[in-house]
């Protein structure tokens, strides 16, 4: 049972465009939603995270938009750069349990 779903599976954008990565979840008790990025042959690293007390979290060019009612969130990457090319994972957890991961969106930013 996939508790965290991501779309699209892969995404290609031009340098300077905004990339939008989507995530949805099933368990309404999840209260921590981190996004990780993973470069080839590297391990995942935290990019940005949000808790449901807010519906938006911004860090530089990266913004999470969160819709608790619909159990959806999205990661927006503005002014995309070739160095942003990676696989992005959405995860979710609640107190006392481990993080569940989506299967990732592979982003390619073309110069």
């Amino acid at each position, binding site marked *: 049972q996939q508790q965290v779903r991501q779309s699209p599976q892969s995404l290609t954008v031009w340098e300077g465009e905004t990339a939008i990565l989507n995530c949805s979840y099933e368990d309404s008790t999840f209260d921590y939603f981190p996004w990780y990025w993973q470069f080839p042959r590297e*391990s995942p*690293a935290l990019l940005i995270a949000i808790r449901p007390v807010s519906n938006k979290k911004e860090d530089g060019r990266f913004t999470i938009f969160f819709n608790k009612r619909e159990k959806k969130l999205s990661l927006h990457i503005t002014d995309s750069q070739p160095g942003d090319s990676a696989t992005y*994972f959405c995860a979710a957890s*609640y107190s*006392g349990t*481990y993080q569940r*991961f989506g299967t990732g969106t592979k982003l390619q930013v073309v110069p």
Partner: protein
Amino acid sequence: NSKVIQTPRYLVKGQGQKAKMRCIPEKGHPVVFWYQQNKNNEFKFLINFQNQEVLQQIDMTEKRFSAECPSNSPCSLEIQSSEAGDSALYLCASSLEENTEVFFGKGTRLTVV
């Protein structure tokens, strides 16, 4: 940069052989997780610890997999009898507390031939 240390980086075992990998969590992090990431990028949670105590583990872990986090020693994950389907990247991660940021090690890539 993560300070979670995993060894070895690469491990090749024959079917039926034992495979053991180690993890030193980031200093001061009492919570340790083990995940398996397969070639389709799917993360499968295996087990987690708080200090030396098991918090949660999945059924798979209870059968052929064993793990421990002894005090003052590296954590370890061992597969008693490796199968081809165990070929994956095994990621260890640690955190200060549950339900917060986790820091991943570089992983141990296991190939079972």
